[in-house]
């Protein structure tokens, strides 16, 4: 499948973005803060955020809880993770990730510019936090797509959120501010349940939809 952009530089630590693993890894990196950026807390926090972002994608693809439908949660019917990511266009569910006019998965320039900058920083001096986080994103995406490997899920056991019974598992994320909320049957996972990671707030689902 031809994708709508060229591969990153030789110093890149992410898989080729023209591959599904590379595309997923680029999304994981795009959504989290690196040292010096707004929202950065720690390497562990950013890495954890990447892992939970992957779980959201996976849950939207393969683990929709009864009685919900995939369409209700992911705004699409899909059996391909790239369709989960690109639904809704440039400003869809995952801002900046879309399919171009030829149907190829694409990213807006600000995404690739930032990742190129992160790669450049990661390549300066001894490998440090930047390199480890980029590698982590690549490893997560590669392991998931090649072998269906999922990291440990911090949100799997969430049984209550916003004082209501919840399905558990993360099904959405948004910027971690109270005014950002997907609404509907999504429930905000509390801080005590690791709901805030990497500057993102994760959301589970109401157990009984209204």
């Amino acid at each position, binding site marked *: 499948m031809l994708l709508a952009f060229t591969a990153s530089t030789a110093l890149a630590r992410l898989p080729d973005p023209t591959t599904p693993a590379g595309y997923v890894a680029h999304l994981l990196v795009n959504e989290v803060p690196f*040292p010096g950026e707004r929202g950065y807390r720690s390497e*562990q926090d950013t890495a954890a955020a990447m892992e939970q972002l992957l779980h959201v994608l996976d849950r939207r693809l393969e683990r929709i809880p009864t009685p919900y439908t995939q369409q209700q949660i992911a705004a699409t019917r899909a059996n391909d993770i790239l369709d989960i990511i690109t639904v809704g266009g440039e*400003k*869809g569910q995952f801002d900046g990730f879309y399919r171009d006019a030829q149907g190829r998965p694409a990213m807006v*320039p600000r995404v690739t*510019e*930032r990742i190129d900058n992160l790669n450049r920083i990661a390549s300066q001096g001894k490998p440090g936090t930047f390199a480890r986080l980029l590698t982590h994103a690549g490893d997560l995406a590669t392991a998931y797509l090649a072998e269906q490997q999922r990291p440990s899920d911090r949100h799997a056991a969430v049984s209550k959120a916003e004082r209501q019974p919840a399905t558990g598992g993360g099904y959405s994320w948004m910027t971690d501010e109270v005014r950002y909320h997907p*609404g509907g049957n999504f429930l905000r996972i509390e801080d005590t349940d690791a709901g805030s990671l990497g500057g993102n707030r994760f959301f589970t689902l109401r157990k009984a939809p209204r």
Partner: protein
Amino acid sequence: MIARSLLLGFTALVLATPVRAETLGFDYLALVMQHLYRWHLDETVLIQVDPTGTLTIHHRDTTPELDDTDRSSYRELLIPSIRYRVLLKKADYDVPELGITITNKEYRIIKAERVDDWLGDLSGFEQVDLDAKAMMDYLFSVRNQRTYPDEALIERMRRALREHLTGPSSPPVQGPQTVYIAPLSRVSNNLWVYWENAGRLIRYSSDTDLDTEAFWAYEKLGVRVYDLSTDVVISFAEAAGSNAFVTRDWAARALFNCVVFGQRLIITPGEPVAVPAGETTP
């Protein structure tokens, strides 16, 4: 620096136990309230404040687990009278890849949000009681106060904006471009710019202070652009789950701060342009 008369007046606002010197001082809390007034509060919030009573600020350390060499600290402020929760960070860590240290001179606001679900037990918090009327009077008195970037920062902004205006993320431009830079907040590392020709709001942000060289190592990383013709909604519920949008309410505040209070610059992509006399405001 807050005018001495205002500072003395503000000192009189404090009614109860003084804040410990190593935590938050009077000047600082005034700046936080001023920032909230400028960027967050609306009429429905201030109308709840009883001007005959006290405005209590609760605060505590909330420093999470950090990287081994990270010396940063975090604090949480709760302001029940206006139902606001403010998270603060005082960054202090090294970025070896860039050979820089990310630092803040004081705590910076990293999040401010109105909270309806309020904590019942505030026993772990320190408390500062302020005279509510005096605080309201103070906020009214400084409502038009503006702090502009100095010449060095303006020059850096010109270069950054010139590059951004002609970058791959921007629409094609021709001729001089008009931008408005919002006044600075001493407690925030967000810098807002309104690019009039393209109808775009641009936010520069970083963990490090705006007036440090380290900030400019991150200018490209910390840019967020909102196209006001396509990226504005009334409510995030209209585009559930998407982070691509900004509410009209928020866009209006940013525009007010940029256009009414801000500093207007003319930038010609591709060449430096001397700003005509009178274009910049001291």
